[in-house]
């Protein structure tokens, strides 16, 4: 089995990260990885909950060199944590927050006291390509999260493929700023693995407000790369936020309209590359949205389309994966994207299935029947996010207590607005609630409770 380098940086003074405008060298990074690796407990599974992206990277690297698998769920609700403990009973949480609320054994990230230059030779650890690096999770219709194994070799192959699709010949010397969490598949790949495997530097900070994004970018020298999402890009434009010069903008997690891409490119004078992917496949295709509609698959990835669904395989994708979207191949390497299959929802880049959400809503004690619906009446908000609503039959409960129970189970972005209490849901003989019935009920509820749809 062949080993692959933990990092592509080949000199001890190469910059691996920036924090508060201060560079962190590869030598320092590897020394911190060694120090943390020595502190990790014996278990095989780590839930890496560090919000500082540098510490996340050190945690990831320390786990890799000690053969531990990183557990990366997309949400950290109490219900998800319970599932993860059942999935991997020895899982512990690595966190940089002493007040971390997760119900798991904790290891607190502590800045090690290291001598400046301990004279150790600069040796980059080699990680076996077949080593299980991480489990990521999607929402299953039974309500339990589904695990997807990611080997180190496949992760590296994916981000090396990403580099070949960027409009520059290499990323050495670039700084990569992400507005996305390191724990989400896209953030994991583009804001952590991409810098580590391309010899560029990641930002420790994860800025949120437009003014913070600008300040973080301004704190480091060019060239700078912004890894973000349609929600944040829209926010930057709406806020008319000035940014320092950028070499590249990357967007993913939800479809970016072409006119928004053109506005972003024109405003910030940088090319915008949009990435298509999923938790199961990882990143797998990209396009220059401002210029064309077609997506180009990552090297080696192939699509197969039947009446029922579209699957992807090959390249860095370990096995054939059914995709959540409707794709139309235009040739062996390109496709058009036509939107989601009916059950799946994407809110601000977080994906779930209505079946999964409905399972959790109906599992709440006191709820006798309930259904989520996608609001198509909501005006696009400034950040372009639509929400879900829900119809609930729960004679003894109020909306507030149902929401509180839901909050324990599902990611907050999926909480229904509004949650409408109704007397019953007119399901048909097979137990289904047909779309037209649901729409009629929702419209009826809107009439009866008009202030709730204000």
């Amino acid at each position, binding site marked *: 089995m062949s080993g692959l380098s933990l990092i592509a940086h080949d000199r001890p003074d190469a910059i691996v990260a920036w924090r508060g405008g201060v560079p962190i060298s590869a030598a320092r990074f590897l020394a911190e990885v060694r120090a943390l690796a020595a502190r990790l407990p014996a278990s095989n599974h780590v839930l890496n909950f560090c919000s500082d992206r540098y510490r996340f990277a050190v945690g990831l690297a320390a786990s890799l060199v000690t053969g531990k698998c990183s557990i990366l769920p997309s949400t950290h609700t109490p219900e998800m944590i319970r599932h993860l403990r059942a999935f991997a009973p020895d899982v512990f949480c690595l966190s940089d927050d002493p007040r971390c609320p997760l119900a798991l054994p904790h290891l607190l990230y502590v800045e090690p006291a290291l001598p400046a230059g301990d004279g150790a030779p600069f040796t980059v650890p080699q990680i076996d390509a077949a080593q299980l690096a991480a489990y990521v999770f999607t929402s299953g219709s039974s309500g339990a999260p589904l695990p997807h194994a990611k080997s180190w070799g496949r992760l590296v192959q994916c981000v090396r493929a990403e580099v070949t699709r960027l409009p520059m010949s290499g990323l050495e010397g670039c700084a990569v700023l992400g507005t996305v969490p390191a724990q989400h598949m896209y953030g994991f790949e583009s804001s952590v693995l991409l810098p580590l495997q391309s010899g560029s530097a990641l930002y420790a900070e994860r800025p949120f407000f437009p*003014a913070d994004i600008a300040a973080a970018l301004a704190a480091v020298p060019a060239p700078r790369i912004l890894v973000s999402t349609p929600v944040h890009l829209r926010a930057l434009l709406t806020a008319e936020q000035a940014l320092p010069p950028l070499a590249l903008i990357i967007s993913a997690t939800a479809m970016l309209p072409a006119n928004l891409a053109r506005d972003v490119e024109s405003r910030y004078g940088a090319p915008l590359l949009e990435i298509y992917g999923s938790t199961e496949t990882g990143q797998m295709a990209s396009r220059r949205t401002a210029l064309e509609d077609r997506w180009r698959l990552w090297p080696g990835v192939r699509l197969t389309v039947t009446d029922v669904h579209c699957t992807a395989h090959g390249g860095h994708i370990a096995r054939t994966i059914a995709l959540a979207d409707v794709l139309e191949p235009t040739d062996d390497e390109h496709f058009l994207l036509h939107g989601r299959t009916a059950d799946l929802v994407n809110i601000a880049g977080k994906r779930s299935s209505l079946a999964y959400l409905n399972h959790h809503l109906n599992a709440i004690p006191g709820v006798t029947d309930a259904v989520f619906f996608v609001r198509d009446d909501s005006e696009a908000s400034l950040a372009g996010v639509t929400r879900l609503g829900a119809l609930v039959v729960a004679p003894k409960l109020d909306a507030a207590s149902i929401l509180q129970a839901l909050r324990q189970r599902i990611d*907050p972005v999926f909480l229904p607005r509004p949650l409408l209490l109704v007397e019953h849901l007119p399901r048909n003989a097979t137990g289904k609630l047909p779309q037209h019935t649901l729409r009629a009920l929702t419209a009826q509820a809107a009439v009866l409770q008009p202030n709730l749809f204000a």
Partner: protein
Amino acid sequence: MSEQALPKLTPPPLDTLVLEREIAQLIVKGLNLPMQPDEIDPEAPLYGEGLGLDSIDILEIALIVSKQYGIQLRADNQENTRIFRSLRQFAKYVAEQRVK
């Protein structure tokens, strides 16, 4: 357990209340919240429990106050922003910082 005198809560001045009302209206409309502006408890937390806003909403609010009041919101950590502790706190912050 010894008795401690509770701090005296003085109601905020009238112009702060007017700003609170204005901000409540902007938030309810801008976020499509299922309630009337005057149903928002001015002392309840905005983020998480209480009003039940999530981080996307906080970003929306940042855009709203940027357009309306010319304020650029900043935060070290999006989840722990003191100013979102309540509508009242937020209105006080806006009153101090507004340029429009």
